[in-house]
């Protein structure tokens, strides 16, 4: 299974600014001073090996959308934030507009940042495509229809050419769809959100975004640890600092890197991927949060090593 991140930003899509790009170029040129970088290959090697990620790349600004590539003809996504547009264009480029496609989409919840990519997902305008949207919220179809109607959008939902279907799932009930065993879990978030544990061929991926994990509730913590148990990858909402989540941003429905490390350590998960980045954080800030999280794992490690990454638009993780 391969996991591709198309949108990793929380709450609101953002774009890197002109000043930030200029700053990256200045840093890169300063780092290159005195080097003999006379060929393109030399430059590419220097960029790949010696520049920090936050200078040579960007974490990106699309809102939530993650693809689980299980190697079949059908496509599996989590959430339809603005990253869904990039994903759709990628599929179009690979398969062309005439190849009918099936998409299975698992919705964490229906807040705007998680559905706003749907109107720009090209395949919904092409006859022959099938989009199956799964979720646990009663108002799921209504939320998509309302977004796709005046005055929010010029094209009404009824005009979409693809076959679009909504499937209601039940929290805690394991089901099989799209070649995956899927267990949804209710999470703490305004209006509720749902995490998903996806299993296939002995591998497990947990998608847990927009969830406030209050670790002082030992019963709830035990439940989450079981949900994460031995997962190969946990995609985790680490939007805020711990201090924020227990003070000014308490009950805002998001978690921290610190809680992500603790839960994954307790669950003996293999890989924690920090996700749903705070939109006010720039690349150096997200990189510094990753460094701190790596250090936290190091100083609190028992007999289990947890790998940690920070998601960016374009990241691919092979399991």
């Amino acid at each position, binding site marked *: 299974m391969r996991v591709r991140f198309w949108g990793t930003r929380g709450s609101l899509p953002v774009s890197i600014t002109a000043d930030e790009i200029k700053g990256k170029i200045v840093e890169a040129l300063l780092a290159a001073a005195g080097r003999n970088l006379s060929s393109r290959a030399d430059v590419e090697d220097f960029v790949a090996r010696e520049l920090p990620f936050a200078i040579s790349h960007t974490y990106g600004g699309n809102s939530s959308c993650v693809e689980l590539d299980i190697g079949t003809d059908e496509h599996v996504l989590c959430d339809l934030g603005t990253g869904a547009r990039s994903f759709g264009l990628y599929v179009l480029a690979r398969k062309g507009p005439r190849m009918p496609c099936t998409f299975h989409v698992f919705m964490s919840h229906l807040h705007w940042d998680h559905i706003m990519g749907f109107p720009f997902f090209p395949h919904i305008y092409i006859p022959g495509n099938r989009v199956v949207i799964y979720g646990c919220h009663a108002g799921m179809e209504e939320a998509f229809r309302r977004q796709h109607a005046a005055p929010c959008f010029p094209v009404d939902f009824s005009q979409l050419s693809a076959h679009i279907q909504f499937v209601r799932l039940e929290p805690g009930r394991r089901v099989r769809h799209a070649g995956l065993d899927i267990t949804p879990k209710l999470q703490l978030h305004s209006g509720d959100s749902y995490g998903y544990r996806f299993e296939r061929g002995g591998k497990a991926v947990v998608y847990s975004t927009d969830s406030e994990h*209050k*670790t*002082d509730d*030992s019963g709830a*913590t035990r439940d989450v640890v079981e949900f994460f148990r031995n997962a190969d990858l946990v995609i985790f909402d680490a939007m805020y*600092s*711990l*201090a*924020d989540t*227990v*003070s000014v941003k308490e009950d805002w429905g998001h978690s*921290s*890197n*610190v*809680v992500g490390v*603790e839960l994954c350590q307790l669950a003996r998960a293999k890989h924690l991927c920090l996700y749903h980045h705070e939109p006010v954080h720039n690349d150096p800030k997200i990189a510094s949060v990753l460094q*701190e*999280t790596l*250090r*936290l794992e190091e*100083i*609190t490690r028992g007999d289990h090593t947890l790998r940690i990454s920070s998601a960016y638009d374009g990241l691919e993780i092979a399991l």
Partner: protein
Amino acid sequence: MQVTAVRYADVLVVAVKGRIDYMNAEEFKAALLPYLENCSAGRDQVVLDMSGLEYVSSAGLRVLMIAAKEVRPGKGKLVAVSLQPVVREIFEISRFTLVFDLFDSVQDALRALSPRAAAMSHSG
């Protein structure tokens, strides 16, 4: 996990020892909060001596946040001292260094909070 206290004049030095995680955070809360009942301007001030604290998880930090909020309306002073290196890093990573004034030792905190308490601890 152990919580004990010693009084120096108007300052209560509360020593926290052991490890605090999600399993014993409630116990820590029950042990700590009674020491904060009189923590307000003109009354008690509280120093958390963390020299014996080996580890604190998010659940323990949440209790510390509750403690900080508890004393805020009465303008009480609650500070932390002598953090072990691991706990200090956990404070930094979780941004709790923005929540608590930190001191290197009990003596440093007493000098900053109450000369009377500092003198008493020195003589005693």
